[in-house]
């Protein structure tokens, strides 16, 4: 379980996270929605300590990751897999080497076992037979799927999705959505996604949290969010330029 309490993060005078309190339950998919620049990715990255908060507590299975020394922190980080917004595949390596990277560095598996796991995970994301291609030879959707295969290769307990459908056509985006749902069902992985794509948020989430002005404005099931009376939430999910959110 992930428990966040009183999380603050500023960049200069810009207060990005302004007292976040949030729980992520075991096995659920929680989606954090919010406008561009609201700090969704920063919030996601504080969960894995890629961004260090100014203050607050980020407990992963009862351990505050912000207070750990490097070796202990790496152990907590290894519970996570992450799908990055721009895929973040290592462009000097092949697809197979990308997916195998974590296995080579974090496990004692033999090369034969690693190859087997790579093929299994590429099959799971529907990309068999591309292990020898370079990331530059892949489309945006394929890159996301390879990145997902890399993230799940070590059987992580948690997966973080940073804008999983951004930059993809609606059909490819839906393929990614289905993959996220299948992973949760098949591997029982706890997932946290950030997105501003409401179609994706409604489809993949057990709960949705709206981030606004550095705080969690509202949290609830997709139906509760759809029927919210909160004007901030309503304006965002309707995609309206009129309302309390100013741009």
């Amino acid at each position, binding site marked *: 379980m992930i428990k966040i309490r009183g999380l603050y993060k500023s960049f200069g005078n810009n207060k990005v996270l302004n007292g976040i309190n949030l729980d992520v339950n075991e096995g659920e998919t929680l989606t954090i929605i919010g406008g561009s620049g609201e700090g969704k990715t920063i919030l996601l*990255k504080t969960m*894995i300590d*890629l961004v260090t908060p100014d203050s607050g507590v980020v407990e992963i299975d009862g351990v505050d990751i912000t207070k750990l020394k*490097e070796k202990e922190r*790496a152990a907590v*980080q*290894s519970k*996570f*897999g*992450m799908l*990055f*917004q*721009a895929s*973040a*595949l*290592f*462009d000097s390596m092949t697809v197979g080497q990308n997916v195998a*990277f*974590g296995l080579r*560095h*974090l496990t004692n598996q033999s090369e034969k076992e690693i190859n087997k796991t790579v093929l299994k995970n590429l099959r799971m994301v529907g990309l068999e037979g591309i292990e020898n291609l370079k990331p530059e030879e892949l489309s945006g959707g394929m890159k996301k799927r390879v990145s997902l295969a*890399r*993230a799940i290769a*070590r059987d992580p307990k948690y997966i973080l999705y940073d804008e999983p459908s951004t930059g993809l056509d609606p059909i490819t985006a839906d393929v990614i959505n289905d993959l996220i749902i299948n992973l949760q069902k098949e591997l029982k992985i706890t997932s946290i996604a950030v997105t501003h794509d409401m179609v994706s948020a409604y489809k993949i989430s057990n709960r949705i949290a709206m981030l606004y002005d550095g705080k969690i404005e509202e949290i609830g099931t997709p139906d509760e969010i759809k029927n919210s009376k909160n004007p901030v939430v309503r304006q965002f999910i309707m995609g309206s330029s009129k309302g309390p959110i100013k741009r």
Partner: protein
Amino acid sequence: MASKNPLELLGKNVLIIANHVGEAIKLFVQSVQYALIPPLEINNIMKQMVEIGIKSLSVISLSALFTGMVFAFQIGYVSTLWLGSPSFLGLGTTLAILKEMGPVISGLILSGRVGAQITAELGTMRVTEQIDALYTLGTNPVKYLYVPRMVACMISVPLLAIYADVIGTFGGFLIALQKFNIPPPVYWDEIVNMIKMDAVWHGLIKDVFFGLIIVIVSCYKGLTCRGGAEGVGKATTSAVVVSMLLILASDFLLTTFLMMIGIGTG
């Protein structure tokens, strides 16, 4: 609001520079600590040695050859003008190459070729979140990216500089033979008999320092790069400029220090 007081501005800039220097040194110390923890990324080190060392051979060859030729020409011309013969051409050319031109020219060229490459590569990895991805895959970027480059630089840069010394001296020989008709035995005997080993050490110590400067500056600029493609461009330019300036400034300080303790005075 921007400060208009020049002293305040100066103070702020000094603080910013001090902060960068501190962070860069901190990162270097971390990388030395990681380098001492096995296992070393041997494959990665070998790959970097090819990138830094082997692929720099052609540019180092040409620059060292022409530098040696120019030096020999200048020394030969001036000594013929003032002394009536191209005296000490081999000695003068080789000493200049060993102690100054070899280390400095190879340092400057490598800060452009290798430093720019390291910063651009690490900077691109930073802005495309590949560095963050390393953390999520249980890999410390300092150990995985910085250490192999540091080890490769520390080995390759002095070796390249020695190679530059040899090529530069050969360039001097070509001019001695072709332009001033100095017989080969005269040129080489002068070098073998009159140049002491501490002139070689003088240059080698500088090479090691210049290699360190290149790797510290370029890795720091790359790993702390921000702001997309534009940020990578700025970081790369900055890494090259800062490395070059530090090489030139430290050359003066190192020369003074080494001469003071008697290395390279002969």
